[in-house]
C-alpha cells in the first residue's frame, strides 16, 4: 500500500533451540536479542524501545531484564505481549511509527517449565523468574475433565463435522518435517512419512504425538524501525505491510472448540482489509502449527470456506516432494514450523524465516522470487493474530 509509512524489520537473531539448553531463560533471550541487534547494524546505544513476550505457560522475561542484560543505556519505551509473539511485533511497529521510539528490539523466548516436560519436573532449578504470570494454564474453573488439550477436541469436532482424516493432518506434519530437513535451526529434522504419522502414539485421541510441537528451550528476536530509517541499514528492508487480530467473545477454547476457527477467520479478514493484497497474491504461507488442527484452521481462514481445508491439502499435496504447494505454487512453513523448531518459537520462528526468505537469505530453503509472506499466530487462550510482510 502506498501513502503511509510502514515499519521495517531490520535485524533478526536467535539462540540455540534445544531440548535442554543447560542455561537459564534469560541467557537465551539475551543471546537472541544481541544477535538481532548485531544483525541489524543499529548501534546498541540507539536501541530505545524493547517489547517482549511475558506470560502464559512458561517463564518468560520482562523487558527490564533485557535492558540490563544488553546494557541498553537509553530505552524510552517498553511493553509486553503474550505469546505467540506476532502481537509483540505489531506493538513494536506501532511504537516506531508513532515515534515512541526509533529502534525497537522485539523478542520471544520460551523455556521448558516443570509442568510442560519431564526434564523440567526433574530439574529443581527450572523455576520461574520473579513476577511470572501464572504458569499453570489451568482453566479458571476447577476441573479439567481429564485433558487440558483443548485442541484435541477442536480436532475431533473438525473430523466429525467436516470429514477431515488423520491423513489430512499427516500432510501438515510431513510437509513441515520435509522443510525442516533444510533448516539448521530446527530441532526435529529427520524426514517423516504419512505412515510414520499414522503409527505415532496417541496423546489425546484423535491427537497424536506428531500433531503437537514439543517443548524446547530457545529465544528469537528482531529489530524494528521505520521504513525511512531502514534505508540506511545494511540489509534489504522487510516491511510490515499489515497486521490484523481478533478476540471474539467466547474465546475460551476449552469450552468453545469452534473459537479457534472463528477467530482465525476474523483475524485474516482484519488483516487483508488493511492491504491491497489478497491471500492468493502472497508467496509464502506460515500458518501457526503449534497443533496441526490450528494450521488447518488458519489455512481454511486464509484460503477456503470453513471445512474445506482437507480438500485444499489433498489438492496441494506433492507425493514426489512430500510437501504442500497451495494452488501448485505457495509453499507452507518453509522452515518446518513449530512442529520442527519446537515450542520455543511459538510462531516467532515464522517471522525469522519470512525475513530470511524475503531478504533472499534463506540458503538452500530459498524460494525463488519470494516477495511477500503471511504469518499467522495464536490459538485459544492466547492471542490470535496475523501479519503480512513484504520485501
Amino acid at each position: 500500500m502506498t501513502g503511509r509509512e510502514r515499519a521495517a524489520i531490520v535485524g533478526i537473531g536467535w539462540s540455540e533451540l534445544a531440548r535442554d539448553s543447560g542455561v537459564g531463560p534469560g541467557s537465551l533471550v539475551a543471546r537472541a536479542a544481541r544477535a538481532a541487534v548485531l544483525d541489524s547494524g543499529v548501534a546498541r546505544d540507539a536501541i530505545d524501545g524493547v517489547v517482549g513476550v511475558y506470560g502464559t505457560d512458561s517463564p518468560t522475561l520482562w523487558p527490564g531484564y533485557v535492558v540490563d542484560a544488553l546494557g541498553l543505556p537509553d530505552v524510552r519505551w517498553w511493553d509486553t505481549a503474550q505469546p505467540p509473539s506476532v502481537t509483540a511485533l505489531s506493538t513494536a511497529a506501532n511504537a516506531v511509527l508513532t515515534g515512541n521510539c526509533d529502534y525497537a528490539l522485539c523478542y520471544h523466548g520460551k523455556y521448558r517449565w516443570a509442568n510442560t516436560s519431564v526434564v523440567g519436573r526433574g530439574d529443581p532449578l527450572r523455576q520461574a523468574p520473579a513476577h511470572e504470570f501464572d504458569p499453570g494454564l489451568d482453566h479458571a474453573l476447577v476441573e479439567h475433565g481429564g485433558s487440558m488439550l483443548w485442541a484435541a477436541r477442536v480436532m475431533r469436532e473438525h473430523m466429525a463435522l467436516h470429514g477431515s482424516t488423520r491423513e489430512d493432518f499427516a500432510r501438515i506434519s510431513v510437509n513441515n518435517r520435509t522443510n525442516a530437513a533444510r533448516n539448521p535451526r530446527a530441532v526435529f529434522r529427520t524426514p517423516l512419512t504419512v505412515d510414520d504419522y499414522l503409527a505415532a502414539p496417541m496423546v489425546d485421541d484423535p491427537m497424536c504425538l506428531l500433531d503437537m510441537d514439543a517443548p524446547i528451550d530457545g529465544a528469537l528476536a528482531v529489530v524494528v524501525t521505520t521504513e525511512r530509517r531502514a534505508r540506511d541499514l545494511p540489509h534489504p528492508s522487510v516491511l510490515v505491510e499489515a497486521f490484523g487480530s481478533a478476540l471474539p467473545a467466547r474465546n475460551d477454547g476449552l469450552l468453545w472448540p469452534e473459537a479457534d476457527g472463528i477467530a482465525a477467520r476474523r483475524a485474516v479478514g482484519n488483516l487483508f482489509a488493511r492491504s491491497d493484497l489478497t491471500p492468493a497474491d502472497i508467496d509464502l504461507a506460515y500458518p501457526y502449527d503449534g497443533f496441526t488442527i490450528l494450521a488447518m484452521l488458519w489455512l481454511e481462514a486464509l484460503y477456503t470456506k470453513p471445512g474445506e481445508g482437507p480438500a485444499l491439502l489433498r489438492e496441494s499435496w506433492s507425493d514426489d516432494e512430500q510437501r504442500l504447494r497451495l494452488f501448485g505454487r505457495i509453499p507452507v512453513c518453509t522452515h518446518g514450523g513449530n512442529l520442527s523448531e519446537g515450542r520455543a518459537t511459538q510462531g516467532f520462528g515464522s517471522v525469522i524465516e519470512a525475513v530470511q526468505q524475503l531478504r533472499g537469505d534463506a540458503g538452500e530453503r530459498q524460494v525463488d522470487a519470494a516477495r511477500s509472506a503471511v504469518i499467522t499466530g495464536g490459538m485459544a487462550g492466547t492471542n490470535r493474530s496475523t501479519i503480512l510482510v513484504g520485501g
Partner: protein
Amino acid sequence: MARINHDTIDLWQGWQRRELRVDRCADCGTWVFPPRPFCPDCWSDTLVGTVLTGAGRLVSYSRPRVAPGAPPVVSGVVALTEAPGVRLLARIEGIEPERVTLGMQLALGWWEDAGGVYPQFGPVDADQVRLPADAARGADADADADAAGGAGQGAA
C-alpha cells in the same frame, strides 16, 4: 485438585452438595457461566443462581493417554440444554469410549476423589447411537442458541 478462587467458590461448594447451579440474568435472561461479576449481555448486576438438572449434549471430546492399565478417560465439552450458551468440561462415563458420538444426549452425574466432588456426564440411553449428520445438526442448533443467548458472537 481443583483450583478455586473468590469467584468460583460458590460454584465449587454447590458441587460438593452435588448441585449444579448456574447464574441467570434477572433482567435479560442470559445464562452466565463460568461465574462472572455481572451479565455480559446487558451489564445487569442481578444474577440469580438457578439449579439445573444437568441435561446436556456432547459438543466434542478427546481421549487423553492414561497410565497403562488405568481405565480409559473420555474428556468432553458438554452444552447444557436447560441453559443455552453454557458449557462444562467434564468426563463422560458409563459408555464404552468407542460408542461416544458428537451430539449425543447426556445426563449429569457426580464423581468424587480425595479433593472433592465433580460433575460428570453419562448417556441418557446407553443404547443410543447417533449418526454424524445428527451430530452436525445438533452443533448448528447449539450455535444458533448461543448467538440468541446474547453474549456469544456468530461465525465470522
